């Protein structure tokens, strides 16, 4: 099977799932509709009315981790093709990627020493 056909199947799977969900919605709609009541206009938040708006700036306390994550995630883009040809290339591949990963790991240690892993 060609690559295009395979992605065609996956696209069909997506459309099929969408159709399944929509038919479920239609079934639920056929059983009954939601009655308009004032209490349903606001988020329930466990039985209490929500006091404050929540679409505000959220203090993400893991910004240091997030920066390191970016570096590591980029590195993974190189790891996958490397891992497939690893056995063919042998020791050269191990040394190449070893140097690369060692530098990344040093980066992690440096970040650690600079307090990246503290909650900001």
């Amino acid at each position, binding site marked *: *099977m060609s*690559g295009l056909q*395979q992605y065609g*199947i*996956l696209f069909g*799977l*997506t459309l099929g*799932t*969408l159709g399944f*969900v929509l038919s*479920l*919605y239609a*079934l*639920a709609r056929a*059983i*009954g509709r*939601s*009655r308009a009541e004032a209490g*349903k*206009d*606001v*988020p*329930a*938040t*466990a039985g209490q009315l*929500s006091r*404050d*708006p*929540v*679409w505000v700036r*959220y203090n*993400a306390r*893991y910004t240091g*981790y*997030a920066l390191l*994550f970016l570096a*590591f*995630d980029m590195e*993974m883009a190189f*790891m*996958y093709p*490397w*891992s*497939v*040809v*690893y*056995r*063919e290339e*042998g*020791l050269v*591949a*191990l040394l190449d*990627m*070893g140097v690369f*990963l060692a530098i990344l*790991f040093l980066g*992690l240690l440096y970040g*650690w020493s600079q307090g990246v*892993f503290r*909650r900001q």
Partner: protein
Amino acid sequence: MSAVLLILALTVGVYAVAVLEDWASHNRLRLLGPVISTLALLGQESVLHRKNDRLFFETAPILLLVGALLSLAIIPLAPGLIVTDLATGALFFNAALAYVLVALIMAGWGPDGAYGMIGGWRFLGQLIAYAMLVVMPITTVAMRAESLSTITIVESQAQLWNIVYQPLGFVLFAIAGMAMAFVPPFDLPNAEGELAGGVEAEYTGVRRMVFRLGRMVLILSVASATTVFYLGGWLGPWLPDWAWSAIKILAVTALMLAGGRMLPRVREGTLLAWAWKLGIPLALVNIFLVGVLVLVVPL
């Protein structure tokens, strides 16, 4: 023919996961439980708030279900019993499950409810903790199989399963997989006790049903991936191929759900600290160890 079999397998698998989750949470084995919940959720009204982000609110459950189903598409249950044998299967698994994060943040943002929003942002932190620990062990599996195709990965384990060949990778992948499927010790986005359901809190009726269904498929997908990457997929003596797949997948699901139930919920900061101070160095060690092992002991 195989399409019918695959849909049947998916239905039975999701049903079994639902029963197992019920058993793990309530300590009761109710075989009809999922049917009853389905009927109840179908009859329940699906409330839509006045000030919501309609697009996000509606997309989130569908996206979760679609992402989880797409990730299942590359899982072989037996030789030939697979939706698509992509050449980049293992990578596609990651790509499809990246949408779990998007879906959960949409679910948190959509209804403008405080608990949902906190759950969604928390899961972003959780992603930063687990994502590298999912992808790094998969690379070592691919190193041994010399391919990203899941069928080749299973065949590469004919002599020795990966759980024996690279046990460290298995432990990291299983724990990170549990965090990805947010099963109990890592159920930060939908923590029942502290967030009243978190991202699921504002979903009712049929929308909640689709959300829960997506979650079940996600758990099934993570368990299947653990089986394919580390437990030799369909390989095993005496029984037919598909039976081995089913037994292994359900056993992994049961272990994940039951084991996680015994542990206290991990805090987001603690999870991040453990993942980056211990998990990532261990994953790098794993890559190096397997790298040497693949060259020295070519099994």
